[in-house]
């Protein structure tokens, strides 16, 4: 057996580990499959490695150590709301009575689950000023798609099939136009004005009897509050269109302003952002879709229906929702139909509701206030050494630009982002929104302390100064990570997307 120097940069694949005879005995041996099915229906071999549990534990523990999460450090990823994920959420979501509940459990035997969904739905409706939500969609983009399908069906029912244009500001998330295209809508991209906002005048130019939906994010992806959104809503409504609110930035508005009050007819939430559901490395998410009263019938199925229960025993103090019995309502003829197999990413509904319980109305208001305060605090400090193209009060996030720095030193936004990784911090969102050159989009969230923010500001300042002294050093970053910058071109040109036995 050869002895090799331990190389922390390398990690063997699970397929290169394991040996026959190392299987774990989780279940008993079964009779041969040929006792049950003809050989022609069975597979010849199953080429998976057998690993002892210890090997598997070590393998994935090592992989976890090669992964950066909020639990390891500051995560100022704009538009993603990477705030602390309270562990009570997970403890509640993984309770046996939730985790082992089959989706076809009869309603009468799943009242607790339905009550969770009902309470969450009612809370969101109140918080965002919508008539109702469906908890059916699986993530933000999925809920966007649901909302646009609702709009499409609504117009179809009204005989307004000519409405095929969706207006999307140039600062919008990429999912907005992509979702619109999946509903057969044509996308009109609207330029932002010099204030970084959608202008009422500009939008009026593109409105007409072919307008279906105007999609807006408020605050927008520059972190700026669209202070004319209610006037835009008026103009869109006057033209017969619907207003859609992209709730990706909802962490900035709770208890402050409601999309319903701003004139939005449709909206989605990324509860995995705003309501502290762990992102889990890119999902699962949870994307409730909300609508104003005239669109409730179109919501995806099922929705939870509450009916008053027989009177409770006297004297017992109960929450309002305890006075109802609940059922899943599938009988909704105008509905766009289901967006997914089962009712909701239910475990996430549990987490979101636990977070709402932890905060209440006042707490949620405070969440948004502190998210905005933290963002503005970082903004004014960062403005001392980096360009901030929109130097005014922002909401929960702001954009900085490395354009000047790049001209001066050659150091790009990408280099700054990579240098931050060497300091144990996640990089901000880069090169988005597309209208800001060399963009760094920074969202600190409310859960970070002033000390963490100050540390981030100091590190960022140091990187910018280093860029001026020694740009090559910044361009070489990261150097402390398990691997350096990866060859993305090679990855795309010579795709290697899976392990091959022969490649050993």
């Amino acid at each position: 057996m050869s002895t090799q120097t331990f190389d922390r940069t390398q990690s063997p694949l699970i397929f290169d580990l394991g040996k026959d005879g190392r299987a774990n005995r989780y279940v008993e041996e079964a009779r041969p499959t040929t006792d049950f099915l003809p050989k022609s229906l069975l597979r010849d071999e199953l080429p998976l490695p057998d690993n002892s549990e210890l090997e598997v534990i070590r393998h994935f523990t090592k992989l976890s150590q090669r992964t950066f999460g909020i639990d390891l450090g500051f995560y100022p990823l704009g538009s993603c709301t990477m705030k602390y994920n309270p562990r009570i959420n997970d403890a509640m979501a993984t309770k046996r009575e939730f985790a082992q509940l089959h989706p076809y459990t009869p309603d009468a035997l799943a009242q607790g689950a339905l009550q969770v969904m009902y309470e969450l739905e009612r809370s969101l409706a109140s918080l965002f000023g919508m008539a109702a939500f469906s908890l059916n969609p699986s993530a933000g983009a999925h809920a966007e798609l649901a909302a646009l399908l609702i709009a499409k069906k609504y117009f179809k029912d009204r005989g307004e099939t000519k409405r095929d244009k969706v207006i999307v500001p140039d600062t919008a998330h990429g999912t907005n136009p992509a979702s619109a295209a999946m509903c057969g809508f044509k996308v009109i991209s609207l330029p932002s004005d010099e204030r970084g906002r959608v202008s009422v005048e500009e939008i009026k130019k593109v409105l007409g009897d072919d307008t279906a939906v105007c999609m807006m994010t408020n605050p927008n992806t520059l972190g700026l509050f669209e202070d004319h959104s209610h006037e835009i809503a008026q103009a869109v409504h006057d033209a017969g269109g619907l207003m859609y609110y992209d709730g990706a930035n909802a962490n900035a508005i709770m208890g402050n302003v409601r999309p319903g009050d701003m004139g939005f007819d449709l909206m989605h939430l990324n509860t995995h952002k705003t309501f502290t559901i762990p992102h889990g490395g890119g999902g699962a998410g949870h994307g409730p879709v909300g609508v104003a009263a005239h669109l409730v019938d179109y919501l995806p199925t099922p929705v939870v229906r509450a009916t008053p229960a027989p009177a409770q025993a006297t004297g017992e103090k109960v929450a309002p929702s305890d006075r109802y019995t609940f059922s899943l309502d599938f009988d909704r003829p105008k509905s766009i139909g289901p967006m997914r197999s089962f009712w909701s990413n239910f475990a996430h509904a549990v987490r979101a509701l636990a977070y709402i319980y932890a905060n209440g109305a006042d707490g949620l208001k405070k969440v948004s206030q502190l998210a905005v305060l933290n963002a503005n605090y970082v903004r004014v400090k960062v403005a001392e050494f980096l360009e901030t193209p929109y130097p005014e009060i922002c909401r929960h996030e702001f954009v900085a630009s490395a354009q000047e720095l790049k001209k001066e030193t050659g150091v790009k936004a990408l280099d700054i982002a990579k240098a931050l990784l060497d300091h144990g911090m996640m990089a901000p969102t880069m090169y988005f929104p597309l209208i800001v050159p060399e963009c760094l989009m920074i969202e600190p969230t409310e859960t970070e302390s002033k000390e963490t923010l100050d540390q981030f500001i100091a590190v960022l300042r140091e990187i910018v100064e280093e860029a001026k002294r020694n740009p090559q050093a910044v361009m070489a970053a990261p150097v402390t990570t398990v691997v350096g910058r990866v060859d993305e071109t090679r990855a795309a040109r010579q795709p290697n997307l899976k392990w091959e036995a022969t490649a050993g």
Partner: protein
Amino acid sequence: MLDAVGVGSLEELLKVPDAVALKAPLDIVPALPEYQIARRFEHFAKKNTGVDYISFLGAGSYRHYAPPAIGTLAMRGEFLTAYTPYQAEVSQGYLQAIYEWQSYICLLTGMDIANASVYDGATALAEGAIMALNANGRKKMLVSRAIDPNYRAVLKTYCDGLEVEIDELPVNADGTTDLDSLKDAVASKTYAAVAIASPNFFGNIDTLDASSAAAVKESGTVPIAVVSEAIALGVLATPASWGAEIVVGEAQSFGVAMAYGGPYVGFIASTSEHMRRIPGRLVGKTVDKENRTAYVLTLQAREQHIRRERATSNICTNQAHCALIATIYLALMGKTGLHDVGALNLQRSRELATAVSSLDGADLKFTAPFFNEIVVDVHQPASEVLAKLQERNILGGVDLGRWYPELSTCILMNATELTTSGEIEALTTALGEIVRVHANV
């Protein structure tokens, strides 16, 4: 901090036009200290009495053994609190795990490539259909009526948006898709794809045979295989072996909790021919600048954040954490464990089938070979029989009349490695009493 920002108060910081200011207090549940949150959810949990019933529910969500090591690993904060691994240098672990997931799915399905996951099995079918629509430009879909009705409903939701028509293939008396109808239909050369599920919704093994596979190929129709019970992949012939070009499915069975319906994890795999049409994230193996092995999100020019309205899909967040759980499950089970679980599912479901069909007044509806679900005809309204079983603390299965009017006396029953002979006995005793009473009337 307010001073640094130059505002006097938080209210001033979040000032909005009067026209849109909040008018009334919010109707939100009251804030509770943490120990009371736990009590509140315990209250909800106790109302989910169904978890303690003997259950034969399946139909797209399955009860399987999940080793505790899965939770130990998957709940590590590094995995749990990471975002999508855009910054490869600090995400090598998660990227490698996704690469391993993609590899496992390819090994299980026999396909060339697999993506990093989609929302669930039903959306996987919808996204797989879109791949086919983009592949040949046709505007119609052909699906077997033996595919999970939820999957077909979701496909319809998506197709309504895309203005794509769906035609359905009938089911034979044996409980498999009518392949003669299939051959006739694809001959029109108007369908982008034909989708068939194996095991199908009734539990039956339901694949293309050689002549129908040839007819599908000849017609330029993309054959899509649907797998809603992933455990079957461990023992059944791969979808690739009977000609599927795209395989879509649900991997909840790989260690992911039933959780009243989600989150689960959909997968999409295909031949390499469809590589640039596959939706969502893909992880590729490459090198870093010092030529060390490294993993990275790749072929991103397909995706919404680059391509916007011309993307292959709008998907952004997927089901990475559930895919991680499934990957850990597969690593723990290995070929031996996965084979044994699959074989036990075959065994237990046959024990169930034998016991139930021995009753007077209950018969197996279909004759086709099945995996771990059976359709039992009780010759009286299934909903009533299920209600009576429920009174005896048994969830006997799913009433097929909910989707198939002609099967309103039929119950879809599932048995897995966790189903005990005691549970089967309890069911047959209760069911025997219920159907016998009726049979004697």
